[in-house]
């Protein structure tokens, strides 16, 4: 097992991944990075984007949003705000979220001050990421 890496992806509602993998690639806040076995200890924050991991030649892709990642002792733990395999992406929901966020941003532009622009932008980014990965963007 010396050249495998234990990957854990945990969200507040469940553990999404718990597997030995060959390579994991994650969207860090400062850019995408890959982690293989025996990586030096690392602590990084995550951006909204795609992560994937490779196991026995197979690649699994996930939509990830926010959180952080810790690597130590051949173990990579990603604590994400949300994470789901791309097959599980709810396209309908993402589309609705996208429309809602766009509408809010538009309203914010027309003088309504009670709208949290940062939150709407984050929501839009999450929705777009999901749609892109699900092949609907």
């Amino acid at each position, binding site marked *: 097992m010396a050249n495998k890496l234990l990957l854990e992806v*945990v*969200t*507040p*509602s*469940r*553990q999404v991944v718990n597997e030995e993998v060959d390579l994991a690639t994650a969207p*860090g*806040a*400062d850019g995408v*990075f890959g982690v293989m076995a025996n990586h*030096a*200890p*690392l*602590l*990084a*924050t995550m951006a909204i984007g795609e992560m994937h991991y490779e196991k026995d030649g197979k690649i699994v892709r996930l939509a990830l949003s926010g*959180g*952080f990642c*810790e690597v*130590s*002792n051949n173990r990579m*733990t990603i*604590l994400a*705000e949300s994470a789901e395999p791309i097959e599980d992406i709810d396209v309908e929901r993402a589309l609705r979220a996208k429309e809602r966020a766009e509408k809010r941003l538009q309203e914010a532009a027309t003088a309504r001050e009670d709208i949290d622009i940062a939150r709407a932008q984050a929501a839009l980014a999450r929705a777009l990421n999901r749609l892109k990965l699900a092949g609907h963007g």
Partner: protein
Amino acid sequence: MPSLKDIQLKIVGVKKTQQITKAMNMVAAAKLRGAQERMEEFRPYADKFANVMGELSGGANPSAFPLMAQREVKRSLLLVVTSDRGLCGAFNTNIINASEKYLQAEKEAGREPVIACIGKKGASYFKHTDYEIVHETIDCMGDVQMLTARQVGAELIRMFLAEDIDQVKLVYGRFINVAVQKPTFRPILPITSEGLSQGDKEAEAEEGPKATYIYEPAPEEILNQLMPMFVNVQILAAMLETVASEMAARMTSMDNATNACNDIINDLTLMFNKARQAAITGELMDIVGGAEALKG
């Protein structure tokens, strides 16, 4: 002595009550399972979060982070997490009593206590007191969402940063086991490195000395991003525990109610039988008396 009809009606009434309490008991048992599962699924996330926070903040300088700022406490906020619904024994009352005691102590120490509520029961109680309620979120315990915790967390952080409040504590119904739930206090803001590193020590002993981490971005920046999230995580954990505790408390109290109904039904049945016997005896006496009189 009540009439036969009255007793019978009463028995029917108690039986119906019993059906309801029994159903509530079973519903609570089913919901408890779900709530407990969610709580347990969340635990690794919360633990890991606390670990990493402990690691990061160990060397951090508190004055560099606004959320770690220790100020002289003038206004101290207590976030009371209760359930939305009643009929769960003394569960909410226990939390409220513990809060009252704490608030009283704060007052005596010369700080002005204010309140934020999650859950309807706490909110409706504190409305009738003199304490100022600065925030309330109700009807959210049926389906606990990260979003709710995030909103409450954002509000608390905003007030803390505006120096509107100087300290935040949280009280919730900690789930110890199905029979025991305990009101528990937990400091939220300012974030202290002592509070964080507690959970970390065991892990450290296991893994031996820590290697130096590569940080991306810089540790201060990571910490700045994680701190607000950590507040939310703690609030969410408290909510999940409170829901599980509520269900456990309801299950126990509804079970007690069902048993009490059984006792009442037994008593009433005894009373009914006695009354019926008395009526029959009375009638027999009449018949015998009549027959005697006819014999002359």
